[in-house]
């Protein structure tokens, strides 16, 4: 018996090196032949006219990538990994009469991480001086950007929180619902549908996906009496599956939605990009509507009742299942909307954009109090502002999510029920 076992082991070990030589052991993150990271920008002269045919190179160690600006001035260099690159604009390829503006470093060193896309701005002409913002100005700008980011997080958080409140499920697949919204807009837009229709269809798709998830998976599981922890693990499996299904069809590259590039505009003391402003206004209106529905309508009352105590709600004649179904649909639509706005905020659409902010959504929800809708709103806005403001106070840009996650852990230490959560035993 021992001899047979030893022989089997020997055979298996013999087989090992051959495999190692031929197929590299698969690593957790699937490799992609296209580069997933991009350094890009637009070249425009001081009259805002695009500059074509300018050569730009990016260098990091052995890697060198080149790009030539296209007819609309856009250039894009795919790079293998995030890190520090030396980006140089070949000034001899500039058209006659156009020069880099004074004080524009060339070559310059560009550092990025945790975003797959970094844009580099080369300013041209005499009149342009790169503005040095003072601290107060910067603080105000980041604050507004933070509110905008926080509100888009809140869109996703409110859905997650409603779902948690009514079903008790901590849904790790919520990030993929966020991704889906942005990806659908990209797909419908690529099919040459009008922009408004693409957005409408994407929101519809998000709602449908929420409904399908509940009808196809979660309701049957609830019927079986599956516990909350197994359901949480099922949601992780679902998240993995959906994430890679999206990558399967969408690919690993970063794509842009229409109108993603926009110059900042000045409103009073604040400079903000029109996209961020739109995002802020849209999410504020939608969240306001959700609040009114929850507080003022019978449906909202029923939802809050189910969130509070499903058994009691059922006993008082509320159709708990239909409330939960509705919560999933609304959660799906809100997550889609959050995803679309997130695609403009970053900017860019990738297959893992939702899972990137999943933990920030969780942070917002836990900060506000698990299961409380208005808590999720407040928590998310705090997280959004915190993420943006930490960069003003000297935290490196690639660490800005750390601050928010850290705050969540600290809050759990002192007030585990969150800001608006009721004091109850949570352990």
């Amino acid at each position: 018996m021992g001899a047979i076992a030893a022989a089997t082991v020997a055979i298996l070990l013999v087989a090992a090196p051959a495999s190692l030589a031929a197929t590299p052991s698969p690593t957790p993150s699937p490799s992609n032949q296209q580069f997933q990271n991009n350094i890009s920008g637009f070249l425009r002269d001081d009259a805002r006219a695009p500059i074509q045919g300018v050569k730009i190179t990016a260098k990091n160690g052995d890697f060198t990538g080149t790009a030539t600006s296209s007819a609309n001035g856009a250039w894009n260099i795919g790079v293998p990994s995030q890190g520090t690159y030396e980006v140089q604009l070949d000034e001899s390829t500039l058209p006659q009469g156009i020069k880099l503006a004074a004080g524009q470093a060339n070559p310059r060193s560009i550092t990025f991480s945790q975003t797959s896309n970094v844009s580099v701005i080369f300013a041209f002409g005499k009149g342009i001086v790169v503005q040095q913002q003072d601290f107060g100005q910067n603080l105000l700008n980041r604050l507004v950007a933070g509110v905008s980011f926080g509100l888009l997080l809140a869109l996703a958080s409110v859905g997650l929180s409603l779902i948690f409140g009514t079903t008790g499920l901590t849904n790790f697949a919520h990030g993929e619902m966020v991704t889906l919204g942005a990806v659908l807009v990209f797909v419908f837009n690529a099919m040459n549908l009008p922009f408004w229709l693409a957005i409408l269809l994407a929101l519809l798709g998000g709602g449908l996906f929420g409904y399908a998830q509940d009808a196809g998976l979660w309701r049957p599981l609830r019927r079986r009496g599956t516990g909350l922890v197994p359901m949480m693990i099922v949601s992780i499996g679902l998240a993995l599956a959906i994430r890679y299904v999206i990558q399967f069809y969408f690919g690993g590259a970063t794509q842009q939605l229409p109108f993603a590039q926009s110059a900042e505009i000045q409103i009073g003391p604040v400079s903000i990009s029109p996209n961020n402003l739109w995002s802020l206004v849209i999410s504020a209106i939608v969240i306001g509507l959700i609040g009114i529905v929850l507080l003022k309508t019978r449906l909202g009352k029923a939802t809050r009742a189910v969130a509070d105590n499903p058994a009691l709600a059922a006993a008082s004649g509320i159709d708990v299942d239909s409330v939960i179904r509705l919560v999933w649909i609304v959660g799906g639509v809100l997550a889609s909307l959050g995803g679309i706005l997130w695609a403009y905020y970053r900017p860019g659409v990738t297959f893992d954009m939702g899972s990137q902010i999943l933990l920030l959504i969780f942070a917002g929800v836990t900060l506000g109090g698990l299961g409380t809708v208005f808590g999720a709103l407040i928590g998310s806005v705090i997280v959004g502002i915190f993420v943006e403001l930490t960069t003003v106070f000297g935290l490196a840009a690639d660490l800005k999510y750390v601050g928010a996650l850290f705050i969540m852990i600290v809050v759990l230490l002192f007030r585990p029920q969150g800001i608006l959560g009721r004091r109850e035993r949570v352990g």
Partner: protein
Amino acid sequence: MDFGFILASAAGELFSPTTAAYALAALGLAVHFGYSGLLNFGQAGFMAVGAYGFAISTLSFGAPFFVGLLIAVICSVLFALVLGIPTLRLRADYLAIVTIAAAEIIRYVVTTNQLTSVTGSANGLAAFEGGFYSMNPFPEGDYLGMNNRDFFIRVIGWGLAVICCVIIWLLMRSPWGRVLKGIREDENAVRSLGKNVYAYKMQALVIGGVLGALAGMVFTLPRGAVQPANYGTELTFFLWTCLLLGGMATVLGPVIGAMIFWVVLSLTQGILYGLIESGAVTWLTTVQAGQLRYILVGVALMLLMIFRPQGVFGNKKELAFA
């Protein structure tokens, strides 16, 4: 399609060092979740702490191998304490969220450009394995078709896995292990017997975390490099899949689970690539075939959890949730 080669590759995964690392880390999860009911979604963080603790102490401070090993283990103990103090009194889902957040914090911190001189940021660290391979007792030559380095790392990786399995097996049949299982079944009942539930949970968290750190080292040594991208949340989820495949409240379950996981991944890769190369499948690219395998992992995780939560070897009565 060369089935002999595909089967040989899959069989090679059975005893690859990566499989040993997954087995160790999943064993740590078994201690956390299977035996104690702690939802740790940050095992990748523990692995990163082990790998970076070892690599940084070797590269930055020139520590010899065993000092580096000790530092890695101490770091993981500290990480477990820091995680456990705020969360072990809370409900299970809080621990889940905090551990996954803490693992991501670790990954962000080792990725940041601010610390490039220490952590190597996104490119990671390399060339720290010299001390390990200098201890290789096997002279150069052919060992079952491997060179002495590959053979050495397999012997150490699997030796460590076997030792850890024995230790965990002994621990779990000791009175200490019985209390732990009692906590999993009914925390309040154990508390009413006068046991300090919090301390027991903390000890379990630390032991599982140390296993994670050791796994992190076994994972990085054969690669000769440690890179933050390898320690994302996906790694944790793959480890959970291994754990659930094998059976969560068993000692051998995580090991067998890790073997099944890698053999199936290797088989599907071999077969899919073979079909694509032979032209039988034209609707897939090789990149998509890679993604298809991870879709299967996700679906497998869901199906396992729904239809056979006790895994291949587990006992349905020993589930951390009823």
